[in-house]
């Protein structure tokens, strides 16, 4: 095997086995810290050994064995420290959670622990990317634009809280499962969105490394919870969103809105997979949750050849369905955008203006108003709305696009 092939094999194994190795070690040693460090050391050993000895026949087993040995070495070395830890092992309850297989069960425990509601959202994100995704602390720090020290502290503090406050290492009881799964999905969706519309002023507008990681982890969760409609829904939503990423930024680095995108640049394989998942959920005949409805909305968009061809009445109907689950002003804003295509910008603007009180600090609210006012020929008011949107937007590609659209308006009237 060539050095490059071995390197590919290590990368692939890291992607597929990291969470399993960490989960297996957490079970064995009852300590997330020891599990994480030993897993990392085992991968370092693989990088050293595999090019010389060849890739072992069962890479996952090799890594778990090597990591276990590293963990035992460390415990011997720091005997005292581990004794102190022993009293505060992670709370591992041995009742098998029936519907899941042994390995799946281990990884699920890891995911649910990292996404525990007693941890702050940004902490859950960091811990999940580290412990389940296998990203390094510097990688996560770069992704969320904080210093390595800050991110390192965040991860350490989370592991300490899990141990000290006794956050249990278990798959939640059936009655708590839907709420806890939706907590995990919120973490994954946040990672995806940070990649899809990076919030920093100087980052790439779309960061495919983060969206790809979010999709990968959602796929993993779907393997573990194949019956869960919302997991399938989120995966479909991510695929149907990511499919459009190539058409979303222009050569000059501007964000391109849906109506101006070159639909031929969309990824047809991702769209096909997303549509398949949406159809599967429709056939399941179970009332859909919010991710499934959002995925269905995106399925309508990605089925259309262009804006005019889009089945807007279907989109509005889906937003109505979503409003019943989640009557938030953001959902109402998105519904109004679809309504503009169905009933015209005047009707939509009236609906948007009703949201002014709650959404005045949200840039998408002002973008929507600016676009609707432009279509109604009210250039002065449209310009003011673009100005406000540009002030509030964080993503430089989006600011570039908004500035261009603003500057295309009729020149200001003399007053």
């Amino acid at each position, binding site marked *: 095997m060539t050095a490059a092939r071995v390197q590919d094999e290590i990368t692939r194994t890291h992607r597929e086995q990291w969470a399993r190795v960490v989960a297996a070690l957490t079970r064995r040693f009852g300590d997330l810290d020891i599990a994480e460090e030993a897993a990392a050391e085992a991968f370092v050993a693989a990088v050293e050994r595999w090019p010389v000895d060849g890739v072992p026949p069962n890479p996952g087993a090799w890594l778990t064995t090597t990591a276990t040995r590293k963990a035992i070495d460390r415990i011997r070395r720091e005997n005292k420290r581990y004794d102190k830890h022993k009293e505060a092992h992670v709370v591992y309850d041995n009742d098998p959670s029936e519907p899941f297989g042994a390995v799946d069960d281990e990884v699920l425990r890891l995911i649910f622990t990292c996404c525990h*509601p007693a941890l702050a959202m940004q902490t859950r994100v960091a811990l999940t990317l580290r412990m389940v995704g296998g990203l390094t602390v510097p990688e996560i720090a770069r992704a969320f634009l904080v210093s390595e020290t800050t991110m390192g502290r965040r991860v350490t503090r989370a592991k300490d809280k899990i141990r000290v406050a*006794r956050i*249990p290492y278990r798959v939640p009881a059936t009655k708590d499962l839907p709420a806890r799964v939706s907590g995990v999905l919120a973490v994954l969706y946040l990672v995806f969105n940070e990649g899809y519309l990076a919030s920093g002023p100087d980052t790439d507008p779309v960061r495919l490394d983060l969206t790809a990681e979010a999709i990968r982890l959602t796929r993993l969760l779907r393997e573990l919870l194949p019956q869960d409609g919302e997991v399938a829904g989120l995966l479909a939503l991510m695929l149907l969103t990511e499919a459009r990423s190539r058409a979303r930024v222009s050569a000059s680095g501007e964000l391109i809105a849906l109506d101006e995108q070159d639909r031929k640049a969309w990824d047809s394989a991702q769209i096909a997979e997303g549509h398949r998942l949406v159809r599967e959920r429709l056939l399941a005949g179970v009332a859909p949750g919010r991710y499934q409805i959002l995925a269905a909305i995106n399925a309508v968009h990605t089925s259309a050849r262009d804006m005019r061809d889009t089945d807007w009445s279907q989109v509005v109907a889906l937003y109505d369905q979503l409003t019943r689950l989640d009557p938030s002003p953001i959902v109402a804003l998105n519904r109004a955008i679809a309504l503009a295509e169905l009933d015209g910008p005047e009707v939509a603007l009236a609906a948007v203006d009703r949201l002014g009180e709650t959404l005045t600090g949200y840039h998408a609210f002002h973008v929507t108003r600016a676009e609707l006012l432009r279509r109604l020929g009210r250039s002065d008011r449209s310009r003011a709305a673009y100005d406000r949107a540009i002030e509030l937007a964080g993503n430089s590609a989006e600011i570039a696009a908004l500035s261009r659209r603003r500057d295309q308006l009729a020149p200001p009237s003399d007053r």
Partner: protein
Amino acid sequence: MQYLISVIDDGTGPETATEDAAIDVFNDRLKAEGYWVFAGGLGTPDPATVVDNRGAEVVVTDGPFLESKEYLVGFWIIQAPDLDVALELAAEGSKACNRKIEVRPFL
């Protein structure tokens, strides 16, 4: 594992008879199911006195060490196997006493 469940008053005011009754029901459950260790009510921090004897002489100060609109008005100490159980009980306690609650593990 023992947890301190602190009851925080953020302007709720004095306890009502309904809250009292609900707290009694909750306390009975804690005792019946083996979670109960201890509990107590403190009221407002107005009658507090701060004592500092780290220096040459004792310094006694009238009033709480922290002036705040939010203050500790009471607490439970419970015995629970893990944080999930503690949080579930805390949620019930918060409903009973109609106040927000902080859960902290003892070392």
